[in-house]
């Protein structure tokens, strides 16, 4: 994997699960991600756990940004992950998502083009945090990204998480970087919020590696609307969708009532899948 090429593809609006298994690989990714943000005048907040703050600062420096200056004027903030994610000794997903939304709003008020977040998630393994709770948090934080003002790199050390847990958590991210990621990687799925009509435009692919994120984004888009309204999901940019994605769309339509979910731009394979899954659902 060429870390530079891959990090270079990450933009505001992306929520990336970045898995690594040697410290230096994690530092390399964070250094490039933070440096790119500072160079674009984005605000950057790092929640660190096992990664050493001084080593992160050095890695950012090495990538051509000026982290000391940014730390001094508040454009870069480094905070201990446990204090942020578990202020009362346990993860409160809703509260954490709320505080990140607040952080994003503050970055906008301060005149930044966006907010970059680094989440060093080793604390979750160290504290024995329930994987279901962790997934609930990662799934619900997806609502921050379709506005294109926040990018997040969630760092998962593969040595600390059992493989099954790791891929379950990874699926709550629209895109994952793994040991076999190649230099042609681009984020697998992106969502863009639309105003007129209200809804989401989805671009990319949905499969077992990101299906929980897809379901969460679709659900959030419908939850935002008052009863009686219709949410429009523009799927013209979805080049691949699996059975679970089709099922999630059918389920979202049912759960949204009395709102309506309108699908536009479905490509023929997805339309066939919706027919097949819909036929099952009627059964």
């Amino acid at each position: 994997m060429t870390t530079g090429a891959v990090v270079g593809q990450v933009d505001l609006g992306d929520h990336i699960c970045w898995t690594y298994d040697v410290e230096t690989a994690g530092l390399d990714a964070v250094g490039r991600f933070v440096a790119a943000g500072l160079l674009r005048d984005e605000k950057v907040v790092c929640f660190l756990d096992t990664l050493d703050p001084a080593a992160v600062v050095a890695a950012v420096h090495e990538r051509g940004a000026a982290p000391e200056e940014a730390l001094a004027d508040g454009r870069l903030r480094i905070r201990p992950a446990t204090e942020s994610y578990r202020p009362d000794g346990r993860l409160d997903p809703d509260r954490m998502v709320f505080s990140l939304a607040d952080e994003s709003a503050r970055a906008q008020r301060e005149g930044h083009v966006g907010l970059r977040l680094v989440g060093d998630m080793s604390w979750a393994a160290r504290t024995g945090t329930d994987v279901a709770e962790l997934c609930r948090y990662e799934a619900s934080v997806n609502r921050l990204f379709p506005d294109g003002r926040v990018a997040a790199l969630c760092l998962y050390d593969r040595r600390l998480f059992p493989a099954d847990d790791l891929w379950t958590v990874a699926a709550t991210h629209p895109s994952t970087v793994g040991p076999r990621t190649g230099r042609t990687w681009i984020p697998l799925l992106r969502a863009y919020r639309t105003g007129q009509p209200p809804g989401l435009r989805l671009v990319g692919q949905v499969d077992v590696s990101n299906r929980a994120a897809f379901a969460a984004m679709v659900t959030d888009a419908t939850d935002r609307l008052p009863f009686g309204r219709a949410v429009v999901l523009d799927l013209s940019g979805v080049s691949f969708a699996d059975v679970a994605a089709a099922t999630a769309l059918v389920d979202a339509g049912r759960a949204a009532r009395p709102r309506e979910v309108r699908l536009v731009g479905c490509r023929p394979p997805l339309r066939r899948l919706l027919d097949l899954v819909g036929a099952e659902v009627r059964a």
Partner: protein
Amino acid sequence: MTRTLPNQDTFVHEGLFYPDTDALVAGLVPFVTSGLAAGEPVLVAMPRAHLELVRDAVADADAVSWADMADAGRNPGRIIPWVLQAFVERHPGRRVRIVGEPIWVGRSDTEYPACAQHEAMINAAFTGRPATILCPYDATGLDDTALADAHATHPVLVDATGRRSSPAYAPSDVVARYNAPLPTPPGPVDVRAYHVDTLPELRRFVAARAAVAGLGEDRVADLQIAVTELAANSVAHAGGGGTLQVWTTPEHLVCKIHDGGWLADPLAGRLTPASDGVGGRGLVIVHALCDLVRVHTTPAGTTVRLHMRRWL
């Protein structure tokens, strides 16, 4: 032929052995018309040539649903969920009557094991369902194995001499007998290992091979979905990955997917989801999308072979 009405909620599965098409028509017409007379919805699913013979002989053909089994049942694994169960569910609360001829002269050796397993699985899939299914067998044209298997997959046998219960009835044995290793041919085979983080590459690879083999755009997309569903099962239940082998025969593009998982439930993928097990929803769609699906599954690993016709 006389026939006693079954109990309202019993499932009846009978094999009809016909020596020629006259006997076929003579056996099926009273079955169909007495079903209509009893107010039961009737479906006849047979290869087109047989279908037309029976349709011409039934007075009220418009009251019957007709399906070309060579198309609807091209993949034998598709028949239970997408032909039989679909018909039952279109008529909730009513006893239905179905003629299903899934095995005919001309079914290939590659298809046959899936056909026999299909016939065997009907018994478990429809236990307790209010349905009568009659399966015609060409007693003259089919080989001894197919006829012997039909005795094992049908609890009741029907021929010119009457109806009797089958002493050889043992459907589980048939499912097990054809749950056999699926060899890879000696010819050129492409191999790819896959993992949860290489699925887009896997899909690109499948699409390229399928396009070279002559599959149309829609069929390429269907195959990508099918392969992705099986790979998803590997990710969720078989240690995170597996291997894909792809080759072509004159008739088919073949994708063979192997992983360390086990489909312990023989009905996995054969039922619509309400009563389905782990991974079942993806598998039932795989059956709908592919032209033939062969499975070999043991506690040590599972191999699934997907066949897509190169020329439809």
